[in-house]
């Protein structure tokens, strides 16, 4: 096997690993990881139900109650006044993706504690590919959940156009990638399953509430300029806006750029963290091979 020189565009190590397997073998590996995550999801029906109950409660109870209190003026992408249920639906889609992303993080920590992660990490495929495959599996499951939620929301009067249902798919994919990559990165920092409760308190809730999921940013700015700044710095705001515009067959370019950039950042961090030569796991190894 020839060695790659420094001038080669692909790093030598990566090129060697790529040469080791054919494209169809990469697809076999990807399919295997997708099937495994799908089977795990089907085996945990309560996870699927709870992932739907949470946003549906917000839609049926919270939004119904606040409909009379909160008025949403005409702001893009809306061309008319909209009901509060319609306004918070993109945020609830984001909520499903957020919880699902964190769930995949929980699943990674669980796999690590139970030892299943080792079978993945000793695969001869490049580690970045294994992690991206795992990420794609998590995203596919998240998207499925969002579409089931949107189908139920349709009966509640939240009815985007057909184009909206189609065009929201790439937005959901990108948003799911970003949030699952964040989950993957967080999973490398959590040593024990018990520490996962901290994720709920310090990541999910702040990200969700300090965003445009529940209230338009102009309303937040009126009540608290500081909170408004926090919302603008919160990547979840851009997830929500990307989905909101996509549901109306439009692209919010700023949100798109932020989501793509954050995905690259979180995914790069996660790949580094799971790299035995550089990662957090490598630095935190403990006796008995329990990392």
């Amino acid at each position, binding site marked *: 096997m020839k060695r790659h020189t420094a001038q080669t565009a692909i790093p030598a190590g990566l090129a060697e*690993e790529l040469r*080791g397997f054919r494209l169809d073998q990469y697809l076999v590996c990807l399919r295997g*990881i997708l*099937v495994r995550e799908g089977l795990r999801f089907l085996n945990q029906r309560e996870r699927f139900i709870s992932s739907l109950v949470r946003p549906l409660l917000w839609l049926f109870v919270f939004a119904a109650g606040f409909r009379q209190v909160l008025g949403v003026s005409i702001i893009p992408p809306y061309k008319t006044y909209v009901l509060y249920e319609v306004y918070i639906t993109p945020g609830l889609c984001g909520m499903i993706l957020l919880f699902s992303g964190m769930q995949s993080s929980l699943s990674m920590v669980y796999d690590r504690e139970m030892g*299943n992660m080792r079978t993945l990490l*000793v*695969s*001869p495929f490049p580690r970045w590919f294994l992690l991206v495959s795992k990420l794609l599996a998590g995203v596919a499951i998240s998207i499925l959940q969002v579409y089931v939620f949107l189908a139920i929301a349709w009966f509640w009067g939240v009815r985007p156009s057909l184009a909206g249902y189609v065009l929201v798919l790439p937005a959901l994919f990108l948003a799911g990638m970003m949030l699952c990559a964040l989950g993957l990165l967080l999973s490398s920092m959590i040593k024990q399953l018990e520490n996962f409760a901290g994720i709920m308190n310090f990541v999910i809730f702040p990200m969700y509430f300090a965003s445009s999921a529940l209230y338009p940013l102009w309303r937040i700015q009126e009540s608290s300029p500081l909170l408004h700044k926090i919302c603008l710095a919160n990547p979840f705001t851009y997830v929500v806006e990307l989905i909101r515009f996509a549901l109306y067959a439009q692209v919010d370019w700023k949100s798109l750029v932020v989501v793509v950039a954050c995905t690259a950042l979180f995914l790069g961090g996660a790949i580094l963290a799971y790299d035995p030569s550089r990662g957090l796991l490598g630095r935190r190894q403990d*006796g008995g*091979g329990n990392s």
Partner: protein
Amino acid sequence: MQHVTERERMCPPAALDVSGVSHSYGQKQALTEVSFSITPGLFTVLLGLNGAGKTTLFSLISHLYNTRHGSIRIFGHDISRRSGEALRRLGIVFQARTLDLDLSVYQNLSYHASLHGIGRRAARVRIANLLAQVDMTNRLNDKARSLSGGQMRRIEIARALLHRPPLLLLDEATVGLDIQSRAEILAIIRGLVATDGTSVLWATHLIDEVEDEDQVVVLDRGKVVANGRVDDVVRSAGAISIHQAFAALAGLVPVQADKGSAI
């Protein structure tokens, strides 16, 4: 066996070559200048008490940890620089159970096959053959959760062999099993060495798992204190049996006779 290059055919490299490997967890030194190699087609026992560094060494060999000092080569492929090529030649049974309990035996094995790029059709044939080999054909569709400890080990061995690795590592594979299961697992592995020429590194602290014709590497507090054929290790430790030699090398009882190094 897969992936044997022309160069390997001409001059076969060691199945496993560990050279000057050291590893520490912060201030705690786990391995110090560990060196040994395994000749292809042999059953090698890595003997060491709990805490001797066996699992750390396995984690380094399987690239779960990065080798910072020294080098590890599997059939000539450096685990740090060419991990993909090295891992393709390696089958591993970890000390901790690593089956997904919610999936069936077939689903667990099929998942592993895909992690090695083996397509569904080929995987199905290999799974059927391997389950017959470990006498577990009738549990194909059972959930892993429903298996006993010994049965799980058999499945894990079948899984480690799915991609036909020429080198098999087993880390305390018989811990927690009853005497009969232990004997059966050992018989399966020794059978692989005899019939398929698979190289095996069997880590254990159970001295009665060592047989006279085995190669032995004794690890004590992170250092290789003996390495060679059983009779060489016994002789150089000035002992009369491998039990006595291991006890002496691990500092459990004093040995009166002249004890040279077996390394």
